[in-house]
């Protein structure tokens, strides 16, 4: 049975027409029924039932309830939450029980939402397929022999399988948008800093963002509205839009949309190209002014990202040393060996690979040639986005050059796996908001359409995405 819209569910819970306890049981039953997809690492069933009972009691007592009253959701397992372990799908964090919760989850709970489970991911969010999870590979709901994309692949699969009305993901280089594209749901990457990162396992701090995965843009807008804004626990957070993110206008007439030339170039699957061209024609018919636009440095974005990201990853993962929490190797004779053994046994291949690359590009003698150079090309990219947004309101292209690939296809070629992110990473480097919405299928597999806007224009982006989604 499918879920109604999030606004509908919450309204009915507040009106006493739906019970939060029934919604939680519906989610837990769906999770149990769809276990074969390996989308979920653990449920938070006991805590979810307690919270649902509290919501139902509050309704009975006539207490005021929030925008998400009784709405079940699933958090990617790199969000610190009560009620289950927080592992980031890594062996090194297996057994870790968070002593506090992430701000994003706290804000959702304050609005009445109920976390029911933790979703699978590539360990520490390093990957594009969930194959790098230290525990299991999530299967694509459209074809079990294919990946759901990553790293928020468990969250995306959970939404498409309707295990809950929405899921949380993180997007450092495309990790929300890519799985949304591969599974056929909506994935939103907000402006950098719009949602607090406090209590989320850090990957690459200068590009990490938090966002929802949902079935509709309206659902995404409502969840973002609850999470967005300054947080004293994350000093990189920015002010929210005073107009909020709901009640979106849907007029496309006169909207200026630039189609990114570099993303429509050769190497794009025909089916993906066809779906994007069809969307462009529909946007034109709806009155949007669509033009082709070039950002010449975009082909360099992936190289910039695979310097900046591992550099920040190697710094952020240095905290996992086996001394203060989580896994610790038993067989070391001294402290340094305890660090090295713990990390050798606790990290998977991709985490180690990124730590090694990051250590290299940050090491003395190579810092200027790699890290500083990458950060300077990053400035060039940002300038090109600024120039583009001086001419158009939004940028458009595919989310990925192809549809979901077979499990195992890229497993032994790390560079090929990195290329999956080729159309998503530039957005993270620039800090701008972007969304992937379903744009039909190619050979029965979902295709994602990506829209981008200038920093801080999340409300406008959601509005145009909602209007575009209605056309497709």
């Amino acid at each position: 049975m499918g879920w109604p819209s999030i606004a509908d569910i919450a309204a009915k819970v507040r009106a006493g027409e739906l019970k939060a306890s029934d919604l939680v049981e519906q989610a837990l039953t769906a999770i149990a029924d769809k276990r074969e997809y390996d989308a979920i690492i653990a449920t938070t069933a006991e805590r979810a039932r307690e919270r649902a009972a509290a919501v139902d009691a509050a309704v009975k007592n006539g207490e005021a309830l929030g925008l998400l009253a009784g709405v079940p959701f699933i958090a990617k397992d790199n969000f610190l939450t009560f009620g289950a372990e927080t592992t980031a799908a890594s062996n090194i964090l297996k057994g870790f029980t968070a002593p506090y919760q992430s701000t994003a989850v706290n804000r959702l709970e304050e609005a009445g939402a109920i976390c029911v489970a933790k979703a699978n991911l590539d360990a520490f969010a390093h990957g594009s397929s969930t194959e790098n999870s230290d525990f299991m590979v999530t299967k694509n709901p459209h074809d079990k022999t294919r990946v759901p994309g990553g790293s928020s692949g468990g969250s995306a699969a959970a939404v498409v399988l309707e295990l809950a009305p929405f899921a949380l993901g993180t997007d450092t280089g495309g990790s929300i948008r890519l799985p949304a594209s591969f599974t056929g749901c909506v994935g939103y990457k907000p402006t950098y800093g719009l949602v607090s990162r406090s209590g989320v396992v850090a990957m690459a701090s200068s590009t990490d963002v938090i966002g929802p995965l949902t079935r509709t843009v309206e659902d995404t807008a409502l969840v973002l509205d609850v999470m967005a804004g300054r947080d004293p626990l994350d000093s990189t957070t920015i002010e929210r839009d005073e107009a909020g993110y709901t009640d979106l206008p849907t007029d496309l007439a006169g909207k200026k949309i630039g189609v990114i030339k570099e993303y429509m170039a050769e190497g794009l699957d025909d089916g993906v190209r066809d779906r994007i061209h069809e969307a462009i024609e529909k946007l034109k018919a709806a009155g949007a002014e669509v033009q082709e636009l070039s950002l010449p440095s975009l082909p360099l974005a992936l190289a910039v990202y695979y310097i900046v990201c591992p550099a920040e990853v190697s710094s952020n993962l240095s905290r996992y040393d086996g001394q203060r929490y989580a896994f610790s190797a038993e067989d070391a004779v001294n402290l340094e060996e305890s660090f090295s053994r713990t990390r050798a046994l606790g990290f998977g291949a991709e985490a180690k690979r990124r730590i090694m690359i990051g250590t290299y590009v940050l090491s003395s003698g190579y810092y200027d040639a790699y890290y500083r150079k990458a950060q300077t090309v990053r400035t060039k990219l940002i300038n090109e986005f600024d120039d583009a947004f001086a001419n158009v309101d939004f940028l458009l292209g595919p989310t990925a050059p192809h549809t979901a690939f077979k499990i195992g296809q890229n497993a032994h070629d790390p560079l090929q796996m990195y290329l999956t992110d080729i159309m998503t990473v530039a957005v993270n480097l620039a800090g701008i908001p972007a969304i992937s919405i379903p744009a039909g299928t190619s050979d029965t597999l979902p295709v994602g359409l990506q829209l981008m806007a200038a920093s801080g224009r999340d409300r406008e982006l959601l509005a145009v995405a909602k209007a575009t989604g209605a056309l497709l």
Partner: protein
Amino acid sequence: MADLTRDDVLKLARLARLQLTDEEIAAFQKELSEVLQYVAQLDNADVSGLEPTSQVTGLKNVMREDEVIDYGVSPKDLLALAPKKQDGHVKVKRMIG
């Protein structure tokens, strides 16, 4: 950029406090060299007159009052997470030898 040698990989692993098996050393020697060759395309990018970007918010020196705020987490809760502890401290292996 020349390919990484086995010694290069071992030096990085030491810096990163990461013990590697012989198979991992061989694999990383190849894979890291490939990634470094790929990112070498930045060598030709013209960045004259540009400064590096390390953060995108434009925020500077975000300050707060220097006061204790109770978030409901006690030192005891945090210490309970440590694999080994003694007398209210985290216990670690000896540092020398």
